[in-house]
């Protein structure tokens, strides 16, 4: 499945744009972004494909653009997936160590991971990720690699991300239609977190919120491992739609207003300020109140953060997020959003920066490319692990390749 080329491509079929990022991995493992292609997405709603024909065209445009910029042919991609059907939860696997000397072997580790992944999912669902957290040996917490240790009982926690098989297949099939291999599907929220967070931040505990066009994905790291993931099928599209409804303007106009006058908090100066549109003859056709616009936006964004906060509260994770929250995705561009979030989340909030990757500055600076860059990052990890023959990579690959084979 993996070829020997050091070109890694991340493809994200998003609600507002389709974007392909081409990265090159040097022999020492460092990543360099060498190409970027994007196209406005028309066939996607809430992160899921609703019009395959249109989506196909958009993907082709983005891939062609990325190929020409990178000067390389794209033959396989890491595909980002999202959507309201995706869920995450934690599961624990147990395995008794049976060898005479009680030494934990590689096989024991593989067995326990396999046990942890034996999850009772609904028949129509499939595992996207089963991410290993920590091992327990005889109840002792926090072991990252138990091979060679002595013990009688080996346990492991995994975080399982799963989604509806058919809906995941839609995107995979579309990409396969171009004779492009899908190496793996990756949850967008996970990808974004890989692009943004340093190892130190993961250790401290961090929340990454990717506010996209159709969905808001979030991932929580605690102690260096993923503890929680979630998807809200609400995004920038909803903001535009609210504005179109509330201000009684067409959707395209609402989109434009959002970009020009939008704000996450109601600006004192905007209260009562009016904006007048003119038609092509210069005659005024409609006047809208900027205060109302910002009010509508602010309420929607506030609600997104509130829903995330409720979810995290339920999971009991707030106390572990010492590095704070990081915003990314197109929604991170909304002015003052870093001011709106802290009182709701009770966390320091900053706009995430794509770090430890070199290459095209234009790509790295944009929050909306974080997920696509993260996909490349994910691919580079996989490459490295393949070189290191990590059993985990094989394990995860096994789970997903079974899904891929079905398409």
């Amino acid at each position, binding site marked *: 499945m993996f070829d020997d080329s050091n070109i890694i491509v991340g493809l994200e079929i998003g609600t507002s744009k389709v974007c392909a990022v081409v990265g090159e991995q040097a022999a020492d493992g460092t990543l360099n972004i060498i190409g970027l292609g994007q196209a406005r997405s028309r066939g996607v709603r809430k992160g899921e494909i609703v019009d395959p024909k249109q989506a196909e065209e958009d993907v082709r445009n983005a891939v062609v653009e990325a190929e020409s910029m990178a000067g390389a042919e794209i033959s396989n991609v890491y595909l980002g997936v999202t959507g309201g059907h995706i869920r995450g939860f934690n599961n624990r696997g147990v395995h008794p160590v049976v060898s005479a000397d009680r030494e934990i072997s590689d096989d024991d580790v593989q067995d326990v991971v396999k046990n942890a992944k034996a999850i009772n999912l609904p028949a129509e669902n499939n595992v996207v990720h089963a991410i290993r957290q920590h091992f327990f040996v005889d109840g002792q917490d926090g072991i990252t690699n138990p091979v060679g240790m002595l013990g009688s009982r080996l346990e492991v926690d995994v975080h399982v991300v799963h989604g509806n098989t058919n809906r995941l297949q839609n995107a995979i099939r579309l990409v396969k239609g171009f004779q492009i291999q899908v190496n793996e599907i990756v949850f967008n929220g996970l990808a974004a977190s890989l692009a943004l967070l340093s190892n130190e931040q993961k250790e401290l505990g961090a929340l990454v919120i990717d506010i996209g066009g159709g969905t808001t994905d979030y991932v929580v790291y605690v102690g260096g491992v993923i503890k929680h993931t979630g998807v809200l099928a609400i995004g920038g599209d909803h903001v535009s739609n*609210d504005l179109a409804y*509330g201000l009684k303007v067409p959707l395209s106009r609402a989109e434009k207003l959002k970009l020009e006058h939008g704000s996450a908090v109601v600006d004192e100066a905007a209260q009562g300020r009016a904006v007048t549109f003119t038609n092509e003859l210069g005659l005024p056709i409609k006047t809208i109140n900027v205060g109302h616009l910002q009010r509508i936006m602010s309420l*929607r964004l506030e609600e997104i953060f509130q829903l995330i906060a409720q979810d995290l509260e339920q999971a009991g994770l707030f106390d572990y997020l010492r590095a704070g929250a990081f915003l990314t995705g197109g929604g991170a561009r909304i002015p003052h959003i870093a001011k709106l979030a802290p009182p709701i989340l009770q966390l320091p909030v900053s706009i995430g920066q794509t770090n430890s990757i070199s290459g095209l500055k234009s790509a790295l600076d944009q929050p909306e490319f974080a997920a696509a860059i993260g996909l490349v990052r994910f691919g580079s990890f996989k490459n490295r692990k393949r070189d290191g023959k990590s059993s985990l990579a094989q394990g995860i690959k096994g789970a997903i390749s079974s899904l891929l084979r079905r398409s």
Partner: protein
Amino acid sequence: MKTKSETPGATSEVATKPAVKIFGVGGAGVALLDALNEEEFAGAGVAAINTDAASLSASSATVKIHLETKLLRGLGTGGDPERGRALAEEQFSTLKSACDGANVVLIIAGLGGGAGSGISPVLARAAKETGALVLAFVTLPFVCEGNRRQQQAQQGLEQLKSVADGVICLPNQKTFKLIDDNTSVLDTFRITGGLLVEGVRGVWRLLTRPGLIQIHFDDLCVLVRDRHSESAFAFVEASGPARSREAVEKLLAHPLLDEGRALAEADAVLVSLMGGKDLTMADVNRVMEQIGRYCERAQIIMGAAVDAEMKGRLSVTIIAGRNATARAETPPDLPDSVASPETTPRSGNRQNSPMPSLSMEQREHLTARHSGRARRAVNKLLQTQLPLAIVSKGRFDKSEPTIHKGEDLDIPTYVRRGVSLN
């Protein structure tokens, strides 16, 4: 449909009966009280309550309570129930002392104005506090009297329902079925007033006349107490050889019973029959059988009484109570194509001949017709209302809704939270 005179012994009998006080509240209530103020009601304490001195001075009631403060400057409430209520609250003790000593308090009022809608609920509460059973007989305004009066009346009705044991409500609009194009306004009001007065009279007789099959005061209490709902009542009278059949037909066509619909929905029905010495068991049986067919689920309390004056005639009083939750509010102007059969007072033939019993065929025809009507009526009530404002989901109209804890998140947040712009 009116009975002419009563036996002179009525007064003496009253002494052993529960003490009844009848209050007329507001302009309409006081006027209706006058219509009641006949010797028949001699045993009851009759009191008129109004804010308008002129209406009180014209009244023949024995007790007149004039609610007045300087604020009103003798002009009445000006159609504002809030003023009426404030006034009544102020004089709560007066009202309470007026109710003192009564077992049953009947309140007669026309809702929609200031005094009727404002004072009656307070009076009902005062009466309730003295421990009396409170029954209110109220009219609702005609639709053409305007929205404001309708609303005030509805509010008044709701308040009254929550305090009074039972509210018997006559929407004036229903009397349109009883009048034709040539009926004068004066006659129309006389008819509506007449209907209400009949109701009061029916209850009065129930409480005061000796019965063969006695309806106790307790029975009435069971029927109306703490039901806090709207009861329907009807009073019909028939005479002649076919009086029992005629009475049932009249009952089922009675506008106040919604053509029998009220019976079908009732969960408790009180039936009181009164006839002359010639009242036959067959008559009683026939009436009860028919009524029982309509309200199979209801608890039926039945009473029968004999009055020498009623020779050759049969009068039936029905009070149908239903639980407040049992049905939604019926709009006062029910569209109904079923024309009510003759309900005008009839001369009747006073012959005292034995009743010709109905042929099987006739009876079947009769019951089939009526049960069909009732069934249709029940179906009609199942119609539900659609939500008024439908928020378009715009771009997400066709996509899978994002439901979170029962909330559709595709609808703009500010709409769901009820935040008003401006």
